[in-house]
């Protein structure tokens, strides 16, 4: 008796939603958009750039962090990156090596020049603040498809751009977020805005991307990223400068010896 009822119910459902019978589900659409955006950005091989962070607290006081970042694409794996800190001066020479992995734990090492020490640090520190900024470590690691579940929400205009709005749910239980909502422009599949919801599902931060520039006639990079923390009133303005691609970085630029040598 029971199977029959269920069968009828299924029939009824498929009839009433027949208009969507050949369309993809919201989950599939969300995944497709995110995958297409990721695919579109493959093939840059290696990049180098300078980054400046302007930290602003609730009283309007500011502080600057400067660093240089080298990155390298990996075949069928997350990116490798090396970050070298230039300011504030007491952390000058500190360097951070990160191997991002889509499914297994990321690997991260920190080099402390005063002690000449390379420290393997916990990749569980995803939600921790990066250099006192409103960016957490997970906000700065490379985007990998496998790290999230997806759901397409709607189309919406943002900054005069026609955008897909997609929800992304982190799979990692150590993520500081329950979900992110991402605005991706339809024309170039660039992320324009991200809303971050904390573990209690209240809006924590908003990140907006601006001043997109195209490199090697193919790869779009935002020059300005502004992160606003709605709960603390603090913000961080991140500015990228001097992006350079495909200058022949190789594996040897991303090992522990390179980390110790980083200046």
């Amino acid at each position, binding site marked *: 008796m029971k199977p029959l009822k269920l069968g009828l119910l299924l029939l009824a459902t498929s009839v009433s939603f027949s208009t969507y019978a050949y369309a993809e589900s919201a989950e599939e659409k969300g995944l497709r958009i995110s995958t297409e955006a990721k695919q579109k950005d493959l093939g840059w091989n290696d990049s180098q750039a300078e980054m400046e962070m302007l930290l602003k607290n609730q009283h309007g006081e500011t*502080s600057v962090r400067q660093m240089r970042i080298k990155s390298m694409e990996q075949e069928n794996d997350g990116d490798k990156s090396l970050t070298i800190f230039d300011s504030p001066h007491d952390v000058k020479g500190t360097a951070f090596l990160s191997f991002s992995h889509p499914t297994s734990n990321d690997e991260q090492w920190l080099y402390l020049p005063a002690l*000449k*020490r390379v420290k393997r640090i*916990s990749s569980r520190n995803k*939600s921790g603040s990066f250099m006192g900024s409103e960016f957490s470590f997970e906000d700065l690691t490379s985007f990998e498809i496998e790290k999230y579940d997806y759901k397409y929400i709607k189309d919406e205009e943002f900054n005069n751009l026609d955008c897909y709005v997609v929800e992304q749910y982190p799979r990692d239980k150590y993520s500081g977020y329950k979900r992110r909502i991402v605005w991706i422009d339809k024309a170039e599949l660039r992320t324009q805005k991200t809303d971050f919801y904390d573990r209690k599902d209240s809006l924590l931060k908003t990140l907006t991307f601006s001043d997109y520039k195209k490199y090697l006639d193919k790869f779009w990079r935002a020059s300005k990223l502004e992160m606003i923390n709605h*709960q603390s009133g603090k913000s961080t303005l991140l500015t990228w400068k001097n992006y350079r691609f495909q200058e022949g970085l190789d594996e040897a630029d991303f090992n522990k010896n390179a980390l110790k040598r980083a200046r």
Partner: protein
Amino acid sequence: MKKLITLSAASCLVAGFFNSVTANEFEVRGNIEFQARYFTEDPLFSTQEDSYLSVAAAPEFFWSWNDGKDSLEFVPSARVDQHDDERTHMDIRELGWIHVGDSWESRIGVRRVFWGVTEFQHLVDIINQSDSVEDVDNEDKLGQPMVNLSLVQDWGIVDLFLMPYFRERTFAGAEGRPGLPFINSDYVVYESNDEQNHNDWAIRWAQSIGDYEIALSWFDGTGREPILIPHPELITIPEQPVLVPYYQQISQLGFELQANIEDILWKLEVIHNENNLENYWAMQGGFEYSFYGINDSNADLGWLVEYGYDDRGENGGSNFQNDLFLGARLALNDVDSTELLAGLSYDLDYESTSLLVEASRRFGNNFKLSLDVRMFEVDDVADSMYLFRNDDHIQLTAQYYY
């Protein structure tokens, strides 16, 4: 050839902006510090004082050429102490030439090298001698002359060291505090007839395997840890013989393991030391656990628990023969990088405690202020720490970075 041209063209292009990989690069940085120490109790020794002022500087000069494949680093360091002549000293921390090959690197000259994973004690770390006059925690190291070849393989990084010259440990002078005035480091006794010119060598293999960091090392040569022996003739304080450092020949096997399992970092260091007096093994191990973003703030709080064991026991040469360590590190992650670190070591044999509290924050972009408090609670006369029972102190350090 084409690759070469593209490469040099690229580096020319970059030269104007990027101050790292460019040819013929020169860079200076460093810091100057002012330090005040105040001891809260009367000294045990009449030669010691209650307060000490000192200034120190450590500039770093860096040159690189050949597209960064060759570089030279020069880091002299100097301190002038108000009272202690031994703490007033200079050292060359680094004066070395690094050449980077395809899968190898040579580093020749005076250098500092760190080995290890634990926080409260560094058993495996043996390449450099401690500059003990800088701070009692022995974290400061003297530059070590060496030839170091580093080979990068898929199965790990192998480092070979040849060290032709030995650096003697620094000790506080008669006026220095904390310090033991009856140690006279002007007299040094060596087991080897080669004395300071003994050729030491070492090899270390280190590899990251998933969530594990593993390293194995072997050192052969003059042990960095001195044994204090009575000098046959010298006596300064009535009935207290003068102690002088004695450096043994040793072979030391070192093992390091760090495992990042879930959100706990497990750390272990084990050494086996072979020498002509008493072979021994020792270990330091424990874990680190951190809370990120406590109370919805940016602050991180980390807990550290470690245990140290040395099989020579209470009468052996180690202060950490059966000791428990507890630490807490609070980082506010504010714009000034305010940090608070508290560390406690408890000797399970002697029931003595030593406590360290370090607070630091940045002022502006160039200044950093640190306040350290060190306290010793020792009641057992047999405990070597008993001689520091009156040396509780507060230390204020102001550093200017450029």
